[in-house]
């Protein structure tokens, strides 16, 4: 136990102490960093431009480009690890990008432990998922295009995390939004999927407005949008301004990371092919909000109110996602709700300040592994069950797909936070950190710590429910043999569940290895926290309101309770094939706690009325005025055109007349001013 406690999370620090200042001296190996972005970008460009000609080799080419980016990332990472901690934050400014008046932005990369952590996560998990998708998308005639979009996503995500200014970050931010849109709607011949893509896109735009507002505020106040300048100027800025900027950034983070109240798109985003859900809507893109908050730490440090709002948003989403996850029968949507809830944990941690930054990122990394693994597992199940996603139609699948069941099970244990699996190290630290009183206000420790604790219990329940309904219990699908192994007559199409090919199982196995060991390895000796220190600063140790040992015991007890309840309800008891009517809360959770209805009533309907009246006004007033103006210009033009009659004598006369008038005017003016 003491081993688990020693690098205790419970700490508080002096802001920015220990954080390294960015240097402009670029070490040799870092010069390779642009290829991180260039390789996948090139991949996307070649695959999209070559079109059908590249159908035959397109998929593996995409894998190659993503894998190449990973190798470059590994090379840069290793050379960074060889540097002293203070030299690890490097601003690699490549070219002058925009120089317009007072705005001067260079195109550059911020290469530091935080961005490299993301680079490794994105390229490693991304490459595994690329490999997985080679098999998963094998029978899709547009597989090449799929890989082009995946490559585009990887490139955009790397731009996002490597940017050295908010403006370039915004480019990556929009890039991943675009890739996400294209991939959610990849099967856009299905109208519902196309609508889902549009919904995700529109809701993300709301978040983007936040980022744009933050950009404008920074530019207006600091005259710059690059990290170095902005963070250097922050101490001199007013709290009100920092709060506004922080809140705007939070809106952006909420949009991208599906946090309350902009979370409604994530469930629908599951319309995309499963590898997309694993890569973009679980492991990487949706964590961009966490990255943004941690990256903007200096801004939030100066704005305690904004920080409090961040914590509240994280806590609300954490519980919200967990409740929704308990009621979903669609395996991917249940996982999506879980993603939302886990990112809630990260956002909560990021809002706690320096004490939480490292753990937010830590949980982000481990979550990237186990959640991606579970999504790939869900994809493998769908692959074996002819794209069935209703968990009530699963049951007892372990026998048929052992690798999937075991890797999924390891991911399940990891997300539950069972020691010694990855999630234990990362999530437990967040709970501990939440219990640390902030600014000597114990109520916050109790409230947010309590929420995080209860969330862990609910997580255990719904994830166990998901695992049990899918892999354990009795068979609830038609095996076509006529005998009634479960109960009642068999109905529905005949299924032949089978294990997926090696190209799909190996990525799952590798991710499962991460789910098991990554947390322990990174946590040993506080390695990960120390690694991030040049960015997040050094956190001083501080005690939570309850002893750490008691907290761990409480968490594990709640988790055990959750597992037990799920076991009783979904393994011991028969799971009905059709969902029961359920309680009020269940019905609400099934409908995402009526979030869509709220959105429709509050935003969509008024918005539609507004646009309709705008269209009317546009037609009647703007168009009318414009057409009138156009007519006026046309008449003037026709009149002036009369002078262009084709006769040289007229042209010559025009020249002479014009000249005489001009000379006369100038001379008159001169004479006037002279006298």
């Amino acid at each position, binding site marked *: 136990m003491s081993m688990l406690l020693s690098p205790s999370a419970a700490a508080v620090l002096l802001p920015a102490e220990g954080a390294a200042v960015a240097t402009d001296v670029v070490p040799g190996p870092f010069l390779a960093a642009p290829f991180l972005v260039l390789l996948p970008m090139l991949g996307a460009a070649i695959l999209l431009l070559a079109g059908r000609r590249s159908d035959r080799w397109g998929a593996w080419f995409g894998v190659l480009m993503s894998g190449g980016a990973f190798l470059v990332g590994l090379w840069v990472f290793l050379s960074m690890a060889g540097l002293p901690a203070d030299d690890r934050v490097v601003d690699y400014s490549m*070219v*002058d*990008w*925009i*120089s*317009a*008046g007072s705005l001067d932005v260079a195109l550059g990369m911020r290469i530091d432990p935080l961005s490299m952590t993301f680079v490794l996560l994105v390229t490693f998990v991304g490459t595994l998922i690329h490999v997985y998708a080679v098999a998963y998308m094998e029978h899709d005639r547009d597989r090449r295009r799929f890989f082009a979009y995946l490559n585009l996503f990887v490139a955009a995500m790397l731009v996002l995390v490597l940017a050295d200014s908010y403006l370039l970050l915004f480019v990556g931010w929009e890039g991943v939004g675009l890739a996400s849109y294209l991939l959610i709607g990849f099967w856009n011949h299905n109208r519902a999927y196309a609508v889902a893509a549009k919904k995700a896109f529109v809701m993300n735009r709301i978040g983007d407005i936040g980022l744009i507002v933050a950009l404008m505020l920074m530019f207006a106040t600091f005259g710059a949008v690059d990290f170095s300048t902005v963070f250097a100027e922050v101490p001199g800025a007013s709290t009100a301004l920092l709060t506004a900027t922080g809140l705007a950034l939070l809106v952006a983070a909420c949009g991208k990371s599906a946090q309350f109240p902009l979370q409604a798109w994530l469930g629908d985003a599951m319309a995309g092919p499963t590898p997309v859900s694993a890569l973009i809507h679980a492991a990487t893109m949706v964590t961009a909000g966490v990255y943004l908050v941690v990256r903007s730490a200096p801004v939030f440090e100066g704005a305690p109110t904004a920080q409090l709002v961040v914590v509240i948003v994280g806590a609300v989403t954490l519980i919200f996602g967990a409740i929704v996850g308990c009621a979903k029968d669609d395996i991917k949507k249940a996982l999506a709700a879980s993603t939302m809830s886990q990112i809630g944990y990260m956002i909560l941690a990021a809002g706690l300040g320096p004490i939480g930054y490292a753990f937010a990122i830590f949980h982000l990394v481990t979550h990237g592994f186990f959640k991606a693994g579970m999504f790939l597992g869900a994809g493998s199940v769908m692959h074996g069950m002819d794209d069935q996603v209703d968990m009530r139609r699963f049951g007892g699948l372990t026998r048929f797909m052992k690798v999937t069941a075991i890797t999924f099970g390891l991911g399940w244990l990891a997300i539950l936070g069972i020691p010694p699996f990855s999630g234990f190290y990362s999530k437990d630290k967040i709970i501990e950190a939440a219990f640390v009183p902030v600014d000597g206000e114990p109520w916050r420790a109790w409230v947010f710590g309590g929420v995080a604790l209860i969330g862990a219990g609910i997580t255990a329940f719904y994830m166990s429910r998901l695992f049990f309904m899918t892999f354990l219990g009795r068979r609830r699908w038609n095996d076509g043999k006529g005998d009634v192994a479960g109960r009642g007559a068999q109905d529905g199409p005949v299924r032949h569940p089978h294990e997926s090919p090696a190209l799909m199982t190996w990525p799952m196995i590798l991710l499962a290895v991460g789910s098991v060991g990554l947390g322990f390895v990174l946590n040993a000796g506080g390695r990960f926290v120390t690694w991030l220190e040049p960015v997040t600063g050094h956190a001083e140790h501080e005690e939570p309101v309850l002893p750490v040992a008691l907290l761990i015991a409480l968490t594990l007890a709640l988790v055990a309770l959750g597992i037990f309840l799920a076991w009783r309800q979904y393994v011991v008891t028969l799971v009905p094939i059709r969902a029961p009517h359920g309680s009020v809360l269940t019905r609400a959770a099934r409908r995402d706690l009526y979030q869509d209805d709220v959105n429709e009533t509050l935003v969509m309907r008024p918005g539609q009325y507004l646009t309709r009246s705008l269209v009317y006004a546009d037609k009647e007033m703007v168009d009318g005025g414009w057409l009138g103006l*156009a007519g006026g*210009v*046309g008449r*003037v*033009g*026709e009149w*002036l*055109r009369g*002078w*262009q*009659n*084709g*006769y*040289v004598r*007229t*042209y*010559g006369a*025009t*020249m002479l*007349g*014009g*000249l005489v008038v*001009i*000379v006369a*005017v*100038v*001379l008159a*003016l*001169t004479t006037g*001013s*002279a006298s």
Partner: protein
Amino acid sequence: MTDSFVAPTIDWIYLVPILVVLGTGVVGVLVEAFVPARARRTVQVTLALLATAASFATIVLLWRDPAVQGDPATGGTYGVRVLGGSMVIDPFGLAVQGVVVLLAFLAILVIADRTSTGQDAFAPTAAAVPGSPYEDLARRKGIEQTEVYPLVLFAVGGMMIFPATGNLLVMFVALEVLSLPLYVLSAMARRRRLLSQEASFKYFLLGAFASALFVFGVALVYGYAGTVDLAAVFQVLAGGGTPFADMPGLVLTGVLLILAGLLFKVGAAPFHAWTPDVYQGAPTPITGFMAACTKAAAFGALLRVLYVISLGMAQSDPAAQEDLFVALWVVALLTMVIGTAVGAVQTDVKRLLAYSSIAHAGFILVGIIGFSQASLRATVFYLLVYGLATVGSFAVVTLVRETAPAPERALVDATAGVVAPGGESASAPSAPTGGDPVGDDPSPAVPDAGVVLGEATHLAQWAGLGRRSPWLAGAFSLFLLSMAGIPLTAGFIAKFSAFGAAIAGPDTQGGGSTWVLAVVGVLASAVAVFFYVRIIVLMYFTAPAEDAEGVGVTVVRSRGPAAISIAVCAALVLVLGVFPSPVLELAAEAVKFVP
């Protein structure tokens, strides 16, 4: 007498960019005399491209020359006066020369393209009477008028001297050196030859008129200052000789006459009237060449004269200097309004581009009147960007052709009149676009397309082009968007910096509240967007009209050069729209002569 003559020392090295071009022009004339006919074209094209490329390379080499750039540490003089100021090789002159040569290179690529029809844009024998048996014979024999290339080189040589001379008489000579070849080239269109010859003649008459104004202006200034050297004129104006107050009328009239001659060349109102007719009648590759390069060179010369004289005046009589700018205000406003308003009612794509070029002259004038480093930096940048979009869009026009279903001469003649209602001049007696019975020169029949005729310049014929030739239409749209000043294209940066500088106001002296000009400029740009976007809408969102006359529209394939030119122009328009900084910095170095 003779022993008192001292041979002037000439810094030949600084004249190399010009000498390369003019020298190759001379060689080109010899090529016509001594190289066998079948090899002539290849030799001429190669020579012309090499000459412009080499000239550009030498300009790049000279750019960092310490004598040209001066020593920033001492803050002393920069620029080299060759032959006592006949040539002034300074950063500004070199920059304009660079722009001219670069655009000329791209334009020569277009001129050299024979397209998949195997015919270039020029008459087989320009001296033959249109429609005569002699012309018919020459055409059948496949004769080509390769003198085009030396002529272009001579014009380029003149354009390079024009902005880089400090002597008003040399400037006049340069004006003629660049104009005379253009008069000839304008008359050489292969198709619609009468229209082409008419355009040339108009250009010649009005050009001669403008030259006369210029010389008269020089004479008046000489009458005051006793010299035609700009630097000396500056000294006198600044108080080193006859006081300005003694004869303000003489100086102002002289300066205005000189400016009128130059404003004619840039196509600014009220000296613009030749532009639409000449742009329409001249062979399209030549139109692209003169629209882009002449404008750059003439604006360069205009700037030099205007700034030297007005800076001189500012020393003795600031009020008079402001009055001088009033004239430019009037010209800029008129030019923008006429260019956009009349452009909006055009139906012929070449005439439309001509009016667009007039409007752009107005926008560039706004930058010039701004009279600050920022506004002049914008002007140099604008000239480059405008030139790229212009060369590119006229290159696109050369590829969109009319077709007739059968190679029957009678039918061709009948349709030629129907499909070529060239803008307003259709109603003009002296511009018989439609009634030119001999101008069309059917190429050999091409499968599917029938017989390929001249360019399809009527806007209605461009409908649906986006569907048939997406790349070509895409490039054209890009050029139009750049001219309209839509962000992410170079045109936006150019307009933004020009108008931005005008709003910021002049650093030292000048027209005063130039923001008014910027406001008019923005409004005019808004109107101009209408006619640019109208073409894009036509190309992409309108179904091609069925031709009752059996005249179709086809896109001929480039043999390579024109395609390269279009691609380079499009790429530069995009790159300069996204990464303008390096070029803007170069432009800033070029305009440091402004205090």
